């Protein structure tokens, strides 16, 4: 049986924790609003880009197609680009992305393929490093950037493109968490090289005029598309992270509240028991006289 002082201390410390989780939840809620609008604002561009690309890509086929669409012709070496958060305390956000990437990596290895991993974000690196220490070729830290933007995405895209041109891998897959709502974030794997042309996005059968040449446009458009897809992943991730943190901190606050209630009841009961005990002692003492 814990003493009254122990119980008081315990209640005080849970109260302090609850204050912290409550504050974190409110901070996450404020940040979420901004991150969500950034993610939503980035969607139209990425979607239009996909449509234009689908229209363009349907025109080029065969050996003339750029390697970013057609691939290198083999699929021996896979690059996994795993985007996670820089900070923890956001529920299963980081671990669910890492799990998806880990499953994929294991499946590829079982097929006899070579796997290379680039980690964007510290948390994913921390998780994956335990199992795939030798496969991780790079770790990109975005901790110093308060708000990820186009520049960050472009730097990552350049890095990936350079490796692709050097023939370091054949297929690249991007892992991130798609933001559906505050309570639903969907870990997603998206193939970025060779570019995944979504079915059914082709709107018109119209014959386009190209200015300059079709191939030239594609050449500038494809690296661009890579940047845009990575940017979208980063922005979706940022929103998902805040959403996940918000709901995790909300349930933490609620749990703390429950615990305080239980401990307070326990505290009051033992306080009463103590008083009763003392009274009995006094009365029986008086009777004995």
């Amino acid at each position, binding site marked *: 049986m814990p003493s009254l002082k122990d119980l008081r201390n315990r209640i005080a410390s849970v109260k302090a924790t609850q204050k912290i989780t409550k504050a974190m939840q409110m901070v996450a809620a404020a940040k979420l609003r901004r991150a969500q609008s*950034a993610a939503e*604002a*980035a969607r*139209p*561009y990425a979607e*239009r*880009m996909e449509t*234009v690309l689908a*229209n*363009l890509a349907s025109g080029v086929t065969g050996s003339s197609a750029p390697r970013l669409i057609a691939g290198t012709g083999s699929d021996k070496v896979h690059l996994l680009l795993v985007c996670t958060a820089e900070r923890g305390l956001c529920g299963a956000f980081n671990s669910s992305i890492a799990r998806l990437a880990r499953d994929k990596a294991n499946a590829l290895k079982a097929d006899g393929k070579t796997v290379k991993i680039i980690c964007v974000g510290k948390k994913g690196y921390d998780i994956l490093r335990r199992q795939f220490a030798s496969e991780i070729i790079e770790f990109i830290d975005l901790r110093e950037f308060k708000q990820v*933007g*186009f520049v960050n995405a472009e730097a990552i895209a350049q890095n990936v493109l*350079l490796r692709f*041109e050097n023939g370091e891998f054949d297929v690249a897959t991007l892992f991130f968490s798609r933001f559906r709502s505050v309570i639903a974030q969907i870990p997603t794997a998206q193939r970025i090289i060779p570019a995944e042309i979504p079915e059914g996005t082709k*709107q*018109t059968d*119209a*014959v*386009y*005029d*190209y*200015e*300059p040449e*079709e191939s*030239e*446009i594609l*050449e*500038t*458009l494809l690296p*661009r598309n890579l940047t*845009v897809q990575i*940017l979208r992943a980063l922005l979706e991730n940022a929103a998902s992270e805040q959403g996940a943190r918000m709901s995790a901190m909300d349930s933490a606050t609620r749990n703390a509240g429950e615990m305080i209630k239980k401990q307070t009841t326990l505290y009051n009961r033992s306080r009463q028991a103590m008083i009763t005990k003392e009274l009995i002692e006094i009365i029986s003492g008086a009777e004995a006289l």
Partner: protein
Amino acid sequence: MATFKFELVSPERILFSGEIISVIVPSAEGEMTVLAGHAPLVATLKAGIVFVQTTDQNGKEFFVNGGLVEVNHASTTILAEQGRFIEDVDTAVLDAEILAAETRLAGSHSEDEKKRLADTLVQLQEFKHVFEQRNAA
């Protein structure tokens, strides 16, 4: 006047979306005006001003730097690499862009990339010149 649907999208946000009469686009091979019923076209853009005519009297101007325009029967879309409202652009902004382009040019490795960046740089400098003259007038 016949109108058509036009959208100007930058990676960060939608700058303009609505029915318009015409739009003047700074395509890489010269400025061009798109009216309703224009033939389907895809063209790359250079640094310059997009002029959107919303009604007979009114127009809006935007600064874009690179990107592409897609015209089809239903609508016209500009995917700008960078886009701003013209009110947000001044010489300092352009100087910053030029500096950024120079830094990237210095840091690039592949030949194609270098050529592309050098083009961008020239376009930006050209545009800055035009912009200054326009403001002086």
